[in-house]
C-alpha cells in the first residue's frame, strides 16, 4: 500500500545549529506535487533528503519503499533535477546525459539510445553536441531535466524546473510533467512561483521556515493567488518595444525597464493571459531571450496563507 508513496516519518534535518526541515511527516501520492515556499523554507532540503544527497538527522524516509541510503535501488527509481547548475567540466550536453547513464552500468548502445531520446524529448537535439559551459540557463535546465528523465524513473524530483525556460519550452515541459503524472508516476516539483504551482500541481505542500504548514489540493491556494499580481522579468533585445506592447494589455498593471535597459519587469494580474500575450509577441518577431519569475509579492501570499493556517 505505502510502496507507491514517498513517505517522510517525523523527519528533521539540521545543518549544525541551522534548521533545514523539522518534524516533517508526509505521504506523497503519485501525481504532480508542488513544494511551495519562500527561499530558505526547506524545499531543497526536502528534495535532497528524498534523493539521498543529504541524510536526516532523525526520522525515516521511504521512496516507493526504498530507503534513500540505498543509492543502488533508489537512483534507478528516482530522477532528480537539482538546483545546481554545474556539470562535469568539458562535457557537451549529449555527453553529460550519456555519461550519466554509463554510471548506471548500461552498455554504450543503451546509453546512446536513452540519451538521444531524453535530449530529443527536451528539444535539445541541435545544441546537444555543444559544450555545456556555453549553454544559456534555459539550455542547462533542459539538459538537467534530460538527465533526470533519461533512465525512465518512477519518481521525478525537480527543483525549480521551469526557471529560465522560454514560454514555449515551459509549456512543453509542463506537458511532460502531466504525461508522467498521468502514467501514475510521482512528479515532485519545487517552486516559489504560485502561478506555476497553480498551473501544474495536483497537490501542494506549503513550507515555511523548515516546517510543513499546509498540504492538500491546489484549489484552496488558487483563490489567494488571483488577488496578487505576479512579477516576471523578461530579457529581450528590444525591451522598450516589449514594454510598450505589454502595457497595452489590460491585465498588466506595470511594465518598466530594468537592469540598464536590457530587461523588462512586468507585473500582471492574470498569468495565463500574460503568457499567451508573450507567445504572440514572440511570434510577431520580438526576440525573447529569457523569462524568469521574480515574484517578490509571493511572500505576502505565503504570509497570508501561513498566517491563515494559524499554525505558526
Amino acid at each position, binding site marked *: 500500500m505505502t510502496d507507491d508513496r514517498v513517505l517522510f516519518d517525523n523527519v528533521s534535518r539540521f*545543518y549544525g545549529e541551522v534548521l533545514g526541515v523539522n518534524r516533517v511527516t508526509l505521504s506523497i501520492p503519485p501525481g504532480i506535487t508542488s513544494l511551495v515556499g519562500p527561499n530558505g523554507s526547506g524545499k531543497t532540503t526536502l528534495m*535532497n533528503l528524498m*534523493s*539521498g*544527497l*543529504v*541524510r536526516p538527522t532523525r526520522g525515516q524516509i521511504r521512496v516507493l519503499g526504498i530507503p534513500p541510503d540505498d*543509492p*543502488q*535501488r*533508489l*537512483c*534507478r527509481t528516482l*530522477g*532528480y533535477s*537539482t538546483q*545546481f*547548475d*554545474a*556539470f*562535469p*567540466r*568539458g*562535457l557537451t550536453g549529449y555527453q*553529460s546525459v550519456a*555519461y*550519466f547513464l*554509463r*554510471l*548506471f*552500468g*548500461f*552498455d554504450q548502445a543503451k546509453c546512446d539510445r536513452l540519451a538521444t531520446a531524453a535530449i530529443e524529448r527536451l528539444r535539445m537535439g541541435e545544441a546537444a553536441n555543444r559544450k555545456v559551459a556555453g549553454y544559456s540557463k534555459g539550455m542547462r535546465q533542459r539538459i538537467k531535466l534530460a538527465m533526470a528523465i533519461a533512465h525512465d524513473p518512477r519518481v521525478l524530483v525537480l527543483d525549480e524546473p521551469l526557471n529560465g525556460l522560454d514560454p514555449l519550452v515551459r509549456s512543453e515541459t509542463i506537458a511532460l510533467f502531466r504525461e508522467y503524472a498521468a502514467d501514475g508516476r510521482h512528479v515532485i516539483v519545487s517552486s516559489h512561483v504560485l502561478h506555476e504551482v497553480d498551473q501544474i500541481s495536483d497537490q501542494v505542500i506549503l513550507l515555511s521556515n523548515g516546517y510543513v504548514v499546509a498540504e492538500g489540493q491546489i484549489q484552496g491556494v488558487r483563490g489567494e493567488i488571483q488577488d496578487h499580481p505576479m512579477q516576471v522579468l523578461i530579457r529581450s533585445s528590444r525591451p522598450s518595444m516589449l514594454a510598450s506592447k505589454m502595457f497595452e494589455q489590460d491585465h498588466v498593471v506595470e511594465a518598466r525597464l530594468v537592469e540598464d535597459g536590457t530587461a523588462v519587469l512586468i507585473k500582471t494580474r492574470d498569468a495565463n493571459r500574460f503568457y499567451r500575450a508573450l507567445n504572440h509577441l514572440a511570434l510577431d518577431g520580438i526576440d525573447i531571450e529569457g523569462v524568469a519569475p521574480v515574484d517578490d509579492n509571493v511572500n505576502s501570499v505565503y504570509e497570508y496563507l501561513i498566517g491563515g493556517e494559524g499554525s505558526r
Partner: protein
Amino acid sequence: MISNEMNASWPSQIAAVIRLELMKSFFARRGLWIYILAFGPALLYLIHAIDVTRDHEHRQAMVAAHPVSTGALHLVRQGMTQKEVEELLGEPYLKNDFTRSGRRRRGQEFSIYQYTDGDSDFTFYIIDGEVADIREQDRCNLAKDSAIFATVFQFFYLRLAVFFGCVGIFTNLFRGEMLDKSLHFYLLAPMRRELLLAGKYLAGLSAAVVIFTLGTALQIAALSWHFEPGQVTAYMHGRGWHDIIAYLAVTALACAGYGSIFLAAGLLFRNPILPATVVMLWESINIFLPATLKKISVIYYLQALCPVVAAPEADTPALLKLLISSADFPPAWLAIAGLLIVMAAVLSLAAMRARRLEINYGTE
C-alpha cells in the same frame, strides 16, 4: 532480476567513472603544475646531458691539440717544478699566470695549468714555480650518475614531486567537485559509494602513474643519453634493467600510497593543505621515529624498495646525512606488503566516509 543487474554492472560502473575522470582532468590546464613537477627533473637532466656532451667534445678537441697520456698526468706530484711539468706533459691547453697583490702574498707568482686526457680534467696550481695543488675532475660515469640519481630520486622526486603531484591529483577527486558543485552528478547514479571511490582512486592512480613513471623514465633516459652506447649496453646487461624497473615500480607504488592518503584527505578535510602539511612533516621525520611508528608511513617502504641506496658524500651536512642514512629497511616483499596494508587501511577509512558523504555545497 534488478539485484542481478546491479551486481553485474559494477565493473562497467567503475569503468565509467574512470573514463569520465580521465577525460575531465588528464589534460586540464589547472593541472599544468603537476606536469612541471613530473617532467621538470627530466629537463634538468637533459640540460646536464647536453652540457656534459659539449664538455666532452671540448676535451676531445683539447686532447687532439695538446695530446697527453693519462699515465703521465698521474706522475705529477706536489713540489715538482713548473719546468718539470712542462717537460713531462708539454704545453697545457689552458694556462693562466697571475702575480698576487695581497698584503701577505704580494709579488707571489701563481699559475694554473689545465690538461686533459679526454676523460678527466687535471688542474695544477703552481705557486712560485712549484706545484702546490692538484685537482682531478672526472668526467661523469654511470656509477657516479647512478648515485646522484638515487639521491635526487629519493629526496626530491619521491618526497616532493610525486608527493605534491598526488596532493594535486587525489585531493581534488572529491573536494574539487564539491567546490565545483558537480559532485551530485555521481551521487545521483545508482552505484555504491565504495565503487565511486574505487573508480575515482583508479582514475587518479592511472593519471599519476602514467605522468610520474613517464617522468622517471625520461629522467633515466636523459641521464644516460650522453654516455657511450657501449657503456649503456654494459650497464643494461648488468643491473640496468633491474634498476630501471625498480625505479618505475617504486614511482608507481609512491603514487598508489600517497594517492590513497590524499584521496582520503580530500574526503575528510575541507582544506587538504593542512593534512598534506602534516603528512609531509610525518614523512620527513620518519627516520627519527621509533620502529613501530616508522611503519605507518609511505616513504619508509619506498626507500626500502629503491635499488640504489642514496649514499651521502663526504661534505654532506650532518643532519642531511642522518636523513639519507639507510635505516634498517625491511626486505622488498615485506615493504610491498606493508605499503599495501597502509593503503588498504586508508582506503577503508575513505570508503566509510564516502558512504556517509552528503552534498552540502553551501558550506564549502
